[in-house]
């Protein structure tokens, strides 16, 4: 059931209890977890935090902790499946789920006792009404019973026959109605569960809780901003939603910045300041050189088509048009000439309009603390995502990476954040190179209803792309680049499925599907159900372990038959 009053029905319920937090491995979840941890510290609520990377992990963690905890808080996991059936908990376990995955499973919505959803009820959910899906079985049997009774109570055979016929007719009628109802129910559920998409950020949800408790701080506000930006960077929400959420956050930011406007030096320079920025869509450009950032941000790289020679020349023209000397542009941004930096954003915006990049600027937020440290929200998202999925060391324990990424979000762990930024730079460069090589070698094939691309084992940095977030990012950039570079009008509207080797020993590949590229896309993804059906029909060995149903693991040998099944399914 949906929680109406988050303070009364969630926070005060867990106030004197011990809670288990099960958090999924994505940046929004991490930020939500940080906010909740800060709140729990304030109020001395004991908790245990366990990172989970998939459904199996979730089940294991639940089994391990179900003896000791009664209250479980699930962050960014658990809303889109029938949780009670999957975990089989005792009747006194209570789950608080704050998840951005939609659609929310109907059992979770209508369960009144054990499942509490920390989701706003009007968050464009479109949940079918109760009567359409669930039906009380009592009415039917009552009807049967009364039919039998009247049978027994009748006397001569003539009357009995008439009663029999009446009863049979009624039964047939009821059965027909039931079949109709069931068909309608299947249809409604199919429509409801067909597309997978994301709702409001979990971090923003918890920030609102903090605000209602008047325990919100700038740190929590910053984390909620990072959570929202994560949804935008990884393409989980449509642009309109992002803009409206930014407006919501902006109100909080101006409320927190109210003190600054009183006197000149009311706050020390070491205090954290969050400011609204209408900044360029160049990834990590403050911590890199402008040139590198333009080459490796997908927006500019795809608009210029930097994998072609013509594109490179266009870039040089662009820089010359703005009057920026190459030496300056290739230097680290922080050491760039101050006179150039002053009007940089406006100059770039003007020039990019000429080259067809209408939205080079995006509304976002930045944080400043101390003299040296200023970060944009998207910088932090890239850094944390790179840390979360780093393949640097061989042990590769996902929980280790989770902890590192969690640490990097705190202001006191700057060196962790800076190492994350370095990793993110490498990741962006790798993505750009892979995109360039894929486009140039034409390995994106149109399979009819979708585009398909397979990364061979020997591709450089292919280890990086065995992780879901990195692969999704690569998918997105590749699709945009492909749409820019292809001449086939029909192919521009197709979604993309990408497969990359995941585990050499087990011989599996990771498969990701993303919706087609369009200006006003609502980011609804139908691949989750499609993958499930295709796997079933070909009995391929798949693992639907990830919380996003559009990301699965598949045995390499079953790849071709799985694809064929998908093609037949979707045409």
């Amino acid at each position, binding site marked *: 059931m949906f929680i109406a009053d988050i303070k009364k029905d969630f926070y005060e319920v867990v106030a004197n209890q*011990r809670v288990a937090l099960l958090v999924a491995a994505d940046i929004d979840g991490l930020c939500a977890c*940080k906010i909740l*941890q*800060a709140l*729990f*510290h304030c109020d*001395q*609520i*004991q*908790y*245990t*935090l*366990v*990172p989970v990377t998939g459904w199996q992990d979730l089940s294991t963690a639940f089994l*391990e*902790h179900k*003896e*000791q905890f009664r209250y479980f808080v699930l962050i960014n996991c658990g809303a889109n499946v029938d949780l009670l059936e999957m975990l089989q908990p005792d009747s006194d376990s209570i789950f608080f789920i704050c998840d951005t995955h939609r659609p929310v499973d109907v059992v979770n919505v209508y369960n009144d006792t054990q499942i509490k959803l920390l989701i706003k009820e009007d968050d464009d959910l479109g949940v079918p009404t109760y009567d359409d899906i669930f039906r009380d079985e009592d009415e039917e049997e009552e009807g049967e019973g009364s039919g039998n009774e009247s049978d027994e109570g009748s006397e001569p055979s003539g009357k009995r026959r008439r009663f029999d016929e009446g009863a049979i007719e009624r039964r047939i009628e009821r059965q027909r109605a039931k079949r109709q109802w069931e068909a309608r129910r299947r249809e409604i559920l199919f429509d409801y569960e067909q597309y997978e998409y994301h709702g409001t950020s979990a971090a923003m949800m918890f920030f609102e809780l903090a605000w209602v408790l008047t325990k919100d701080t700038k740190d929590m506000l910053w984390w909620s901003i990072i959570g929202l930006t994560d949804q935008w960077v990884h393409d989980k929400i449509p642009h309109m939603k992002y803009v409206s959420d930014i407006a919501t956050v902006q109100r909080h930011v101006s409320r927190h910045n109210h003190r600054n406007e009183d006197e000149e030096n009311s706050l020390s320079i070491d205090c954290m300041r969050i400011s609204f920025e209408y900044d360029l869509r160049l990834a990590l450009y403050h911590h890199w050189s402008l040139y590198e950032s333009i080459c490796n941000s997908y927006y500019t790289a795809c608009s210029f088509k930097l994998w072609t020679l013509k594109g490179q020349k266009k870039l040089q023209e662009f820089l010359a048009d703005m009057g920026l000397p190459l030496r300056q542009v290739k230097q680290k941004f922080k050491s760039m000439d101050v006179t150039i930096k002053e009007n940089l954003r406006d100059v770039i915006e003007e020039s990019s309009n000429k080259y067809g990049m209408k939205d080079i600027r995006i509304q976002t937020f930045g944080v400043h603390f101390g003299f040296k440290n200023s970060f944009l929200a998207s910088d932090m998202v890239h850094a944390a995502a790179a840390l979360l999925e780093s393949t640097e060391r061989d042990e590769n*324990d996902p*929980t*280790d990476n*989770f*902890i590192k990424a969690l640490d990097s979000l*705190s202001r*006191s762990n700057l060196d962790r954040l800076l190492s994350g930024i370095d990793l993110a730079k490498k990741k962006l460069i790798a993505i750009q190179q892979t995109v360039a090589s894929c486009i140039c070698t034409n390995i994106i094939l149109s399979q009819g209803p979708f585009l398909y691309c397979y990364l061979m084992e020997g591709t450089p940095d292919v280890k990086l792309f065995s992780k879901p977030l990195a692969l999704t990012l690569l998918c997105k950039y590749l699709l945009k680049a492909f749409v820019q570079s292809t001449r086939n009008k029909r192919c521009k509207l197709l979604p993309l499925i990408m497969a990359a080797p995941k585990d050499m020993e087990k011989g599996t590949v990771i498969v990701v599907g993303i919706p087609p590229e369009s200006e006003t896309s609502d980011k609804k993804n139908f691949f989750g159900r499609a993958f499930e059906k295709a796997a079933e029909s070909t009995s391929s060995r798949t693992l639907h372990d990830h919380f996003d149903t559009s990301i699965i693991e598949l045995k390499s040998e079953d790849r071709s038959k799985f694809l064929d099944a998908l093609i037949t399914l979707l045409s």
Partner: protein
Amino acid sequence: MFCEKAIELIRELHRVSDGQLPAFNEDGLRQVLQEMEALYEQNQADVSEAKAAGRGDLIPSIKLRHCCLLRNQRCVVAYLYDRLLRIRALRWEYGSVLPANVRFHMSAEEVQWFGQYKKSLASFMRSIGGQEGLDVTQDMKPPKSLYIQVRCLKDHGEFEIDDGTVILLKKNSQHFLPRWKCEQLIRQGVLEHVMS
């Protein structure tokens, strides 16, 4: 050269990183004591000879040997005293039961000394703080809060806290627990205090 063995003892202690107790170097100590005995014998002989035969030229060598004896004595005493200081620090760090590998490194006399130190510390703690005494080995630094956030560094299995609830300590899980319960595990290296 004289006093080399004594310096060896000192160097051994110096080499080991702060706080750890190396094995009791019984051999080394015995060698130093033997050297001291030998020097003393020689000195005795020379002194009686110098007195009897009036040999003034033996005086410098007597002086030299005497200095060596003093030096050896100083080194040995420093060695023993430093070990005692380390053992004392162990009580504050590990509590009254020492882990087996540490106890293995102590000599019998040191063990005895440790027992007596424990007793006197315990009676001191009983005498202050009213009825039930005060455990001064807890909270070495003033605590900022009742509960602290800790992260588990290795799998430690189940752990019980005061009100009977059991926590499963799995690698990389984070917990928010009462401070006094965690201190032991933090010292053992199972948990790590996380400051955010």
